[in-house]
């Protein structure tokens, strides 16, 4: 599969990572070493710091202290952050899908490989909806759209996928389909999830609790 995708999976190293919201610590001294190609499920209760940790890897959440390396590289300058955000595909937690109209086709094309993303969208049941506004999609359709976008990003060369509860709005069949797509991608995967199907499809499970990380399996 790697040959087909022309993708090089990237390693992830988190060392002593702290994140705060004002004075309140959200992530506390997290260490995590994910070798290239490994699939890791990040579980934990709401508010345990899962989303904050994922967002810190992409620079959307400031890291108060510690080291974050993707593929052995840190990101400091704007150019390095731009590089990281093309190397790391991202499925955000489902939200109110932006404040301005964006067409599904535009979302898929933003992945870097619109053809692959549109093919994935068709496989995920979104065929013919490309001219629909993202804000008009159901929660489940929106999550499938973001999953299809992630496939496009991987096809464009991303070597890692961070996914924040990517199956939360899907039905049981959809959860299994999404889990299959997520874990078949030839990339390093770090997925925050409450979904047993997704967690079981991963190579490793780690748990966040009150901002700290511990191994589960």
């Amino acid at each position, binding site marked *: 599969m790697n040959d087909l995708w022309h993708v090089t999976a990237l390693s992830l190293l988190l060392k002593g990572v702290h994140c705060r919201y004002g004075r309140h610590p959200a992530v506390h001294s997290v260490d995590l070493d994910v070798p290239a190609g490994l699939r890791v499920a990040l579980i934990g209760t709401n508010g345990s710091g899962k989303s904050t940790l994922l967002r810190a890897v*992409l620079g*959307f959440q400031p890291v108060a202290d510690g080291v974050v390396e993707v593929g052995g590289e840190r990101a400091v300058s*704007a150019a390095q*952050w*731009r590089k990281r*955000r*093309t190397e790391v*595909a*991202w499925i*955000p937690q489902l939200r109110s*899908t*932006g*404040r*301005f*109209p*964006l*067409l599904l086709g*535009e*979302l898929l*094309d*933003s*992945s*870097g490989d619109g053809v692959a993303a549109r093919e994935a969208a068709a496989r995920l049941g979104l065929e013919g909806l490309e*001219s*629909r*506004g*993202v804000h*008009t999609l159901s929660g489940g359709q929106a999550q499938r759209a973001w999953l299809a976008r992630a496939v496009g*990003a991987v096809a464009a060369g991303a070597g890692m996928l961070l996914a924040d509860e990517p199956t939360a709005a899907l039905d049981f069949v959809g959860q299994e389909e999404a889990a299959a797509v997520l874990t078949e991608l030839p990339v390093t995967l770090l997925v925050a999830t409450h979904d047993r199907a997704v967690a079981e499809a991963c190579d490793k499970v780690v748990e966040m609790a009150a901002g700290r990380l511990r191994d589960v399996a």
Partner: protein
Amino acid sequence: MIAELLALVPVQRAGFGLLLGAIALPPVGVLIVGLDIYPVRFAIMHVALLGSAIGLLTGTDPLLWALVLCALAGGGLAPFATTSAGLSGAMGLLMSLAIAVALLVLSISGVNANGAFELLWGSILSTRPVDLAVLGVLAVAIPALFWWRRRDLSLLLHDRELAACSGVRTGPLTMALLVVIAVSIAGAIKLTGALLVDALTLLPALAARRIGRGLTGMVVASIGIGLVVAVGGLMLALVLDQPPGPVLVLLAGVIALLAQLLPMRRT
């Protein structure tokens, strides 16, 4: 009677200025809606007032000062766009400081403040060639910017993080947009005045939001509505023998209200 009025040079300039404004300003309204920075118009108008005060103090062109200061203010606001507090607080601070300094400048200079405050009302029939030149540049540059960067703009206005993940340089682009917004509002001062600027910026954009599909559709629809407002409003004002500004606003407002009756487009 209408033909006689249209033969007058000030009326011709006003009409031409409105046409140029109808092309340049509604896309700016789309940006304001997309960035959710509705108070920016007031903040920038206060900065423009400060520019006008400095112009009166120094005996130079108030419009030039307004354009320069507004451009600087737009650029200065950009770093706040990425903060959790957003732009609202910064715009409020800018508005207060600008009007305070403007009043101080007027007081120190001893000039008649009425000249500066004329900005608030606009004076469409006193549109000068230099005002038309500024509007002409904006009427070309703004639609061109939208066409050139339409992908990046669509993503940024939808979701800053999505844009960042799609290779968009969100920081510089946001700064450029804020400068464009600020300069456009300053450039429209003579035409619309501070109080009536919404007729050609926000109201067409709000109406277009119900009609257009995606960013390109919204921009095209907003320009179309702007042209209807500009031509229809000026003609109506001439027929009714009323000041054009309020008539333009009322017409734009009616169109925006009617657009709200339309269902949001799903496809």
